[in-house]
C-alpha cells in the first residue's frame, strides 16, 4: 500500500511545477542560445591560450605538452588502423589461397 506524500514533498512539487517550465523555456530562448555560443567560444579560446602558454613553458624544459600527446595519440591511432588494414589483407589472402 502506498502512503500519502509528506507535506514537504507536496510543497516541493508545487514549487517545482511552477519553476521547471519557466527554466525549460529559458533554454529555448535566443538569448540563452547566444549565451551558450559565447561561453563555448570563450572556453575554446581559453583552452587554446592555456595550451599555447603551457606548451611554450614545458618545451623550455624539454617536456611534452598536451598538444604533443595529441599528435602522438593521432599517430598511434593511425598506426593501429594501418595494422588492422594489413591484418585484414592477410586474412583475405589466406581465404583466397584456401579457396
Amino acid at each position: 500500500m502506498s502512503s500519502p506524500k509528506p507535506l514537504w514533498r507536496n510543497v516541493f512539487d508545487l514549487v517545482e511545477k511552477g519553476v521547471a517550465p519557466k527554466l525549460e523555456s529559458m533554454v529555448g530562448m535566443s538569448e540563452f542560445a547566444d549565451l551558450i555560443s559565447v561561453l563555448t567560444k570563450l572556453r575554446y579560446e581559453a583552452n587554446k591560450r592555456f595550451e599555447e602558454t603551457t606548451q611554450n613553458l614545458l618545451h623550455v624544459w624539454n617536456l611534452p605538452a598536451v598538444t604533443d600527446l595529441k599528435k602522438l595519440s593521432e599517430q598511434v591511432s593511425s598506426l593501429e588502423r594501418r595494422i588492422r588494414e594489413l591484418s585484414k589483407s592477410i586474412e583475405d589472402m589466406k581465404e583466397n589461397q584456401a579457396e
Partner: protein
Amino acid sequence: MKEFGLPDAIEDLFAELNRSVARARNGFKYFVGAEKIEVGITPKETVWSYDKVQLFRYKSDKRLYSTPIVLVMSLISRSYVLDLRPNKSLVEYLLGRGFDVFLVDWGVPDGFEASNSLETYTHDYLAKVVENAIRVSGAKDVTLYGYCLGGDLALLYVASHSDAPIRNLVTMASPIDFSAMGPLVDLLKVDKIEPQKLLGWDGNVPADDIANSFRLLKPTGDIVNRANLVENLWDDEFMDGYLAMTRWTGEHIPFPGGVFLQIVDLFIRKNCLATGSCELGGEVVSLISIKCSVLNVVAEKDHIVPIDAATPVVALVGSKDAVELRLPAGHAGLIVGRQANRVTMPKIADWIEGRSELLS
C-alpha cells in the same frame, strides 16, 4: 470512523519506526558511498570483439526461438542500461521470453575512435556484428533492435545492405526528424556553435559536456531526483533502482568526434534522415529500401528525443509490415522502471515473438 483507533495508531507508529531505521541505514550507505551497486550482471560471454566493439551473448537454458535479437546501443552512454539490475533488465526479460539475446557494446572511445565515421559503425562494425551473431547462433537471420542513436545506426545499416540477413528491425526512441529535437540541437543547426569547438583534446566530444547538455534539457531534474531520494530513502527496492540509474547517468562516455561532425552536417543541418535518404560511404542510402518488418517504439514523455522527432520511421521505410508503438513513458522509462516491465517489454516482445522462427 475507525472503531479501534489505538491499535492502528500503534501499528502506524511501528511502521514509521521501521521506515526511520531503513532511512538511517540506506542514508548512511549512500552518503559514505558504501553502496557500490553492481550493474549488467546477467551471465554472458563475449563471442566476438573488434577494435573496442564487443558482442555479448547472454546465457540461457530456455531458448524457444532460433531468430536471435541483437541489441544495438547508442554511442553516448554505456550499454549496461539494457541489463541494469535484476527485474529491471530488458535483456533479462527477453531471455525469460525464450529469445537468444546478443548485445553490441561499442566500448569507451578515445583518440582511436575520434576519426570514426557513421560508415565505420554502419558499414563495418554492424555488418560484422550481424555476421558473427549469425555464425554463433546458427540462425539464418536476426532481429536488429536499436535504442536511441543505436536505432539510427541500425536503420542506416539495414538501408545500405539490402542483402543483410535482417528479419525484423526494432527502433526505440530513435531521433529521425532533427528539426523537432529541441533547443540544444537547434544551437548546432543555426551555426551559433561551431561543432569543431566542442571537441576535446582527444578529438571526441567530452563525456561531461554530454552529461551537462542533458541536464540543461531538464534543469530541475537533478533536484527532483534528490527529492525522490529523500522521500524514498526507506524503500530498499527504490534505492536499488536509484543507485543503478545514478551510476548510469553519471557514467557518460565521450562521443566519437568524426561521427559528431557528420551528425551535425547530415542529420542536424541537412535533416537527411527526415527526408528518408542520406549520403553515406559515397552512395545515397534510402530508408525506403528497408523491406523487413519494422517496429518503431516512441515515448510520449521523452524529453531527450521528443516524440515528434522519433515518429517518422514508419512513413519512411519501404516495409509493408511497419508499425508504431506509442508508450506513456520517458526516454529511459522505456527500458527501466515499473512501466517498462509491465507494458513496454511485453508489447515489444509480443511483436518480435510473432515474427520469429521457433527452434525446431
